[in-house]
């Protein structure tokens, strides 16, 4: 398990409101692309674009995220948290397994945070493993909800076994925010294999200027997994799962889920 972290990060230098997309639905990409054991440090870098007249993006600052620890955090259950009117970071840090339900509804994203681009790369070689973007939505707001309101909050990755051999993966996420300023935007992401917590990451995005587009890279450092654990993860696709909790001012505003296969096939 990893140590706790309470780092706070500086605000990015410039904003881009003109190019910021009008946030529509909360349909974010998971900001984690991998899954191995807990590790020391996650580093992140952040930048955003200027307002009105286009300016080159500010140099991304390296931000230190970290792995959360369960030490000293009271154990919580999903059932308990569902009774809370407000869910805090400390609440989710006590969860011992993947949640069955979402702990907040899509409508609680009152800040209209919208993830528009996601990329993961192998830090050792620089190889880009995956990159995805979301073009501006042209559909009406109610169309996607016909299927399931939570469908847009879930993604599934099908990795090959080789992915489990990686040591450091950088995840770059681009997102836009709505008209409200965002204080202390923070993500806690917890990965499980079956009911075993593999790792918990804690990244802070800091302050986001209203109507801005922001980019942040988080670096996940994965410790080696035992051969047996890797074998089990490969043999049992989609039993590796993650919860991504997003907080503003220590209040849960978004909850995304993902599951993973490492068998190299669907």
């Amino acid at each position, binding site marked *: 398990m990893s140590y706790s972290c309470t780092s706070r990060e500086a605000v990015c230098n410039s904003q881009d409101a003109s190019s910021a997309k009008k946030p529509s639905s909360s349909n974010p990409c998971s900001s984690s692309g991998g899954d191995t054991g807990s590790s020391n440090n996650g580093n992140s870098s952040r930048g955003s674009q200027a307002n009105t007249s286009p300016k080159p993006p500010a140099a991304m600052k390296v931000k230190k995220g970290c792995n959360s620890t369960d030490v000293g955090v009271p154990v919580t259950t999903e059932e308990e948290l569902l009774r809370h009117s407000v869910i805090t970071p400390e609440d989710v840090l006590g969860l011992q397994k993947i949640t069955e339900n979402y702990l907040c509804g899509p409508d609680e994203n009152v800040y209209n945070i919208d993830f528009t681009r996601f990329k993961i790369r192998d830090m050792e070689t620089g190889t*880009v*493993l995956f990159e995805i*973007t979301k*073009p501006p939505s042209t559909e009406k707001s109610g169309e996607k909800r016909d299927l399931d309101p939570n469908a*847009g909050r879930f993604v599934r990755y*099908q990795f*090959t076994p080789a992915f489990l051999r990686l040591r450091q993966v950088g995840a770059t996420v681009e997102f836009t925010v709505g008209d409200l300023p965002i204080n202390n935007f923070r993500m806690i992401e917890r990965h499980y294999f079956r009911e075993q917590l593999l790792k918990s990451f804690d990244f802070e995005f800091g302050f986001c200027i209203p109507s801005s587009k922001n980019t942040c890279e988080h670096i996940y450092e994965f410790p080696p997994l035992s051969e047996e654990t890797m074998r089990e993860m490969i043999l*049992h696709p989609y039993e590796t799962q993650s919860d991504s909790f997003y907080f503003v001012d220590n209040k849960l505003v978004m909850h995304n889920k993902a599951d993973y296969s490492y068998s190299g096939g*669907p």
Partner: protein
Amino acid sequence: MKATLTPEAEKPRCSSTPCSPIKSTVSGYQILHMDSSYLVGFTTGEELLKAAHKWSGAEAASAEALPSPRAKPIDLGLHRASRVYKTKSRYYQPYDIPAASGRRRRRMPSSGDVCLKSLAMEPSRALHGPLPFCLLKGKRAHSKSLDYLNLDKMSIREPADTEVLQYQLQHLNLRGERMFTRNKT
């Protein structure tokens, strides 16, 4: 792609070469790049639900595939997703069917039955894998007619109790027939 039980030999990192940029669209997302050495698939909850709706419409309306939280180890050569779906079909008789020839007949599954079917013959469905539990619950909320069976409260790890299901269906669906049977006797 066939699964292997032994981990792949570690590839020298410098030898990994990205594939050609793949520009495909998944539920409004545009995939700009996917290195098939590490990632072979990406899908969203919307795509999974669409696929599930498509296949449940192609089969009986009530057929559902329940994801197994503890999938059994997969044999060589078998597709993983189809293995996850491979379960027993359950047929049950809520009432005895008097046989004209002296043999008891089995009631065939109707639209009210919940049957778990193998996906070995449905490779395109298997490509998506099982529905995650968080979406399965939402899907159940929109499904018809089976809520009274409280299937969502049944433990997935335990086999369905055929006798309990039979009892429930007897009382809920066949009340009229039983009364008719009583009146006749």
